[in-house]
């Protein structure tokens, strides 16, 4: 996967987040403060602007993800800005200067993203956060690669696990973030951060598929 695919990933993320803006905000209204879709849509619109404005634009997958992360940190605010910003920055750093990214390198980058999110937010699996989607996804991705999966199979495992991880948050009681104030009343609602994580990883699969 080259810079074209990674740029397409970010463009697809912006489209998917915009399309799901109200859905994410509704999920957040149920257990948070009703701004998740709004903030991410604002953030990725700013990312597209930054990618277009950069001259010369980022030429490598790593540079694209780093610029994405920096822009999210600068523009979004809230918890999602630093958390997603750190995820993209760490992934970008892990990819280094490589012009082409193979599956093990992508897997390592997603692991680095997860580690960054957990270091900053101190959330663990089961806390009803984006970590529930991201951790399940990176684990499934690594396993699929170890078992010799093709790119499309591995990315399908990644997204399916992310979606299952997001869905699993419905039954959880939130222990981190604003939803934790609800205590037991947070049970029965899907975590908006886990859902947006699944959407972002879904966009990666779609961009890779389109790029083949």
């Amino acid at each position, binding site marked *: 996967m080259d810079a074209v695919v990674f740029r397409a990933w970010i463009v697809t993320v912006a489209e998917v987040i915009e399309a799901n803006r109200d859905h994410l905000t509704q999920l957040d209204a149920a257990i948070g403060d009703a701004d998740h879709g709004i903030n991410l849509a604002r953030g990725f619109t700013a990312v597209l602007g930054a990618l277009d404005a950069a001259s010369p634009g980022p030429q490598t997958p790593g540079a694209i993800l780093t610029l994405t992360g920096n822009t999210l940190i600068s523009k979004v*605010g*809230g918890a999602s800005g630093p958390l997603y910003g750190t995820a993209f920055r760490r992934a970008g750093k892990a990819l280094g200067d490589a012009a082409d990214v193979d599956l093990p390198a992508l897997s390592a980058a997603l692991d680095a993203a997860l580690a960054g999110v957990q270091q900053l937010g101190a959330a663990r699996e089961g806390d009803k956060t984006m970590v529930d989607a991201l951790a399940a996804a990176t684990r499934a991705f690594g396993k699929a690669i170890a078992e010799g999966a093709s790119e499309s199979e591995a990315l399908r495992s990644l997204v399916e696990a992310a979606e299952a991880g997001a869905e699993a948050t419905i039954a959880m009681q939130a222990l981190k973030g604003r939803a934790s104030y609800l205590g037991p009343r947070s049970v029965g609602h899907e975590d908006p951060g886990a859902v947006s994580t699944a959407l972002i990883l879904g966009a990666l699969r779609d961009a890779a598929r389109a790029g083949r």
Partner: protein
Amino acid sequence: MKKLINSPETVVTQALAGVAAAHPSLTVDIENKVITRAAGPRNGKVGLVSGGGSGHEPLHGGFVGYGMLDAACPGEVFTSPVPDQMLIATKAVDGGAGVLHVVKNYTGDVLNFQMAAELAGDEGIEVVPVVINDDVAVEDSLYTAGRRGTGATVFVEKIAGALAEEGADLAAVAAVAREVNDRSRSFGVALSSCVVPAAGKPTFELGDSEIELGIGIHGEPGRTRAPLTPAAELAAVALDAINADLAVNGDLLVMVNGMGGTPLIELYLMFNEVRQYLEARGGRVARNLVGNYITSLEMQGFSVTVCQLTDTLTRLWDAPVDTPALRWGR
């Protein structure tokens, strides 16, 4: 939902333009969303910076001025500001004696201020953050993000601001800020939801005779839903929760705060209920604030914040202050 806006996207910047026009004592950097004192930093004085999501006005921008904050960073509505604007504010107010960050305990605010403090440190500015967490509606345990920062923020900004104005060093200003936070507790009740402009509809639904006990300042739910009861009973619910955590006796600083949509006549009525409750338990309302100081857009309801005063804290509370939203003694 009806609002006095031009478009949801421009609410914050256009409101900041209004703040700039209304208050010549402030300098407003609209592009970066930073409000500072027009007089600029004073050499050797500790700078005080706070910030948070917009929608809580007059917090924080209305508290920028002599005897209180040096700068405020408003984020989007109910969304914490970003590290870049906090860094701009921190550099703008640094008078060489370091800068105190007053941070309300929400995941986003804490993360962004943490990043800003690191950036400021890289530029050689000493920053000490003080995290405000006075809301007893949230159980402070391993199972939550911890107590939220609410009404005590106003007390901290006033009292720490007064000490900074006297020329105290950063450690002393941070210590008094922590002391005020430690001695303060809050509890909020909502009668109706707020409406985030970009969302366009109520954050939560309440029945005609339903209220939310322990509401947060972003419309995030608190302890429980309950049927509406008379004001005296609501005062007791709020103060029972506070009193269970911090004894409400001795000299007290008490704020009865509107959420943005509550008539002042009801806040005064509520203040009287609060006063009676406290006096019956050996408390004396030595100082008070009644009005809208930390709001949640158009939410109807009230919060009560109680701080156990000491002679020093009372003196610093009484010290001159000259800001758009709090002004006396000067």
